[in-house]
């Protein structure tokens, strides 16, 4: 009997899990389907699931009207650039806080996180002015710097939790063997924390790729990433949902594929240290 109940529960949970999975996945599926619809059918009521006139016209229009590859390469430069710069700053910071904590370490961590609590638009004008004066508006460097700044607290927090899981004895043993500080961080700590660093890196690339407020507000043409590419397909007067969906699919495809292939690392990294 007990076995029967557990099977039933298993089935129940499986259905529930699939149901939740589908709900989460649905917007992407809907965008995907809409991108193949003619404009008129894209916002038809009642909505059409599969019985519409499939067309590739939207992709053709988007291809011919925008320079996808310029936006794509801008996205890659800003996402990868800001992630690498962020890791470069965050690894030593997290190392210091994990292995040489002071009385104030917790407060420092909280303070870092608190910078995320201010709505971005609140600092738009000051940052815009600073960027204007430093001539950083619409530049890759400007976007890399600002994306690094906004994601830095998260990178430090993530790395800090991973580093905490590494036994301090191992580092001490390395020190006993005469390893310098640099050697300790580069040759002992970093290899042990690779899963954690990898998942931080992946997550941060995804966050930077999807960031839409700063990338839209601080760029015009030269550094405009895929977020600007998507934003250009909404129209106040004229049907646009199908073309917008096609543009969205093209913008999220690279990151979706990357996420798919690195799923293992992502999950391993995110659950790293969860089970002792």
């Amino acid at each position, binding site marked *: 009997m007990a076995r029967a109940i557990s099977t039933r529960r298993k089935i129940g949970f499986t259905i529930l899990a699939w149901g939740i999975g589908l709900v989460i996945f649905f917007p992407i599926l809907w965008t995907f389907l809409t991108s193949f619809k003619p404009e008129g059918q894209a916002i038809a009521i009642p909505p059409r699931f599969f019985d519409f006139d499939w067309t590739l016209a939207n992709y053709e229009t988007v291809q011919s009207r925008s320079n996808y590859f310029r936006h794509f390469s801008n996205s890659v430069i800003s996402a990868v650039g800001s992630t690498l710069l962020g890791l470069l700053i965050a690894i030593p910071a997290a190392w210091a806080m994990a292995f040489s904590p002071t009385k104030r370490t917790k407060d420092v961590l909280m303070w870092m996180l608190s910078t995320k609590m201010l709505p971005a638009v609140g600092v738009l004008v000051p940052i*815009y002015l600073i960027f204007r004066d430093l001539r950083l508006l619409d530049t*890759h460097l400007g976007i*890399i710097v600002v994306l690094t700044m906004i994601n830095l607290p998260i990178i430090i927090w993530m790395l800090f939790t991973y580093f905490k899981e590494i036994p301090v004895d191992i580092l001490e043993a390395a020190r006993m063997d005469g390893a310098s500080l640099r050697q300790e961080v580069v040759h002992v700590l970093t290899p042990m924390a690779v899963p954690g660093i990898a998942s931080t890196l992946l997550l941060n690339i995804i966050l930077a790729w999807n960031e839409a407020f700063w990338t839209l507000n601080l760029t*015009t*043409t*030269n550094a405009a990433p895929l977020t600007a590419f998507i934003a250009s397909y909404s*129209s106040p007067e004229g*049907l646009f949902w199908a073309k917008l969906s096609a543009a969205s699919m093209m913008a999220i495809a690279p990151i979706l594929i990357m996420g798919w292939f690195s799923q293992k690392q992502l999950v391993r990294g995110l659950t790293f240290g969860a089970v002792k």
Partner: protein
Amino acid sequence: MKLRSIIIGSVSLFALAAGAQAQSLTIATVNNGDMIRMQGLSDRFTEETGIALEWVTLEENVLRQRVTTDIATGGGQYDVMTIGAYETPIWAAQGWLAPLDNLGDDYNADDLIPAVREALTVDGSLYAAPFYAESAMIMYRTDLFEEAGLEMPEQPTWEFIGEAARAITDRDNEVYGICLRGKAGWGENMAFLTALSNSMGGRWFDENWEPQFDSPEWNEALNFYVDLMTDAGPPGASSNGFNENLALFQQGKCGMWMDATVAASFVSNPDDSQVADSVGYAMFPTKEGLDNNGNWLWVWSLAVPASSQNVDEAQQFISWATDQAYLEMVAEEEGWANVPPGTRTSLYQNQAYLDAAPFADETLAAIEAANTTNSSVQEVPYSGGQFVAIPEFQGIGTAVGQIFSAALAGQTPVDQALEQAQQVTRMEMERSGYYNQ
């Protein structure tokens, strides 16, 4: 090393871009059909003048936010931008726009339709050049009217519209007598409701800037709207904006649709519209005896921010894109039906255009009838037709729009919605210092 090369690379790229800027203009615009056509034809401008163009197309609200930030801080990122009839007087008064005083000798400014020119002129100077303009009118299904034995008068009244909409409605066959905007937003439902209230004798503010939602006119207007949409509107109307209604009308689900005149070219295009051959047009309704057709006027226009480094070249481009010659170029390439409408009187004297655009006469009549300096039959302290041209209106209009959208959805009774709108508006105006003098 890698990082260093990335940084050096980015810096040199920026330097290159800055060096090239003297010969190029950055143009911010929205993704409307006429603007996309302009982008397509703009290579010719570059060929003629050697000035390269960089296009930034953004969602309307993002564009407004982006451009406002840039102008207010003097960022100088844009040389030409697409703005509307709402922004032009406000931004010009702030000193944010460069006056268009150098559009060239060939630019025939006297040919601009007076109401349109008026909407973009501040203290006698033109601050934006009209690219295309629109008023509001009725688009209706001639076949459904015939079936119901109705005839659209030349000058319809709201009373007639109410009766006709209810008579046409056939819910079993998903035909709704009337489709109107319900989606919340100062440029969405409030554009229609402000025009409706104007045509029923209402106004947003009295001479002392006191909001008028407690007036009998607004009461009548909002009750009329909610009752009519409940009886004869499509389901879920509170989330319908211009595009949603366009799709409904094109699918043959609306008996009447009152919206921007530019919609006429969409609903009469047989490629997109199932009802293209049975659309009629008429003036925006008025209340019996008032003779006020709502005074809706919107002008998508091109302006130069004062922070631009290339004011002369920018004006050269604006002159190219809004001149008579441009209309002829579009006609040659894409046919007269695709010419940006509503800006030049000469277009409406051109037989080729009148033949291609069956809605031309009604569009011109609607635009010419729009009085944006005195939109109500009562005295008003503001300008603007379907909006109030004060900086606070974006915020207030959207807040009130949400309240009225909830009333349409049946979540708030009409009386309560008007009371809330009155409070919200009063509070916001007080906060902005309108009652301190």
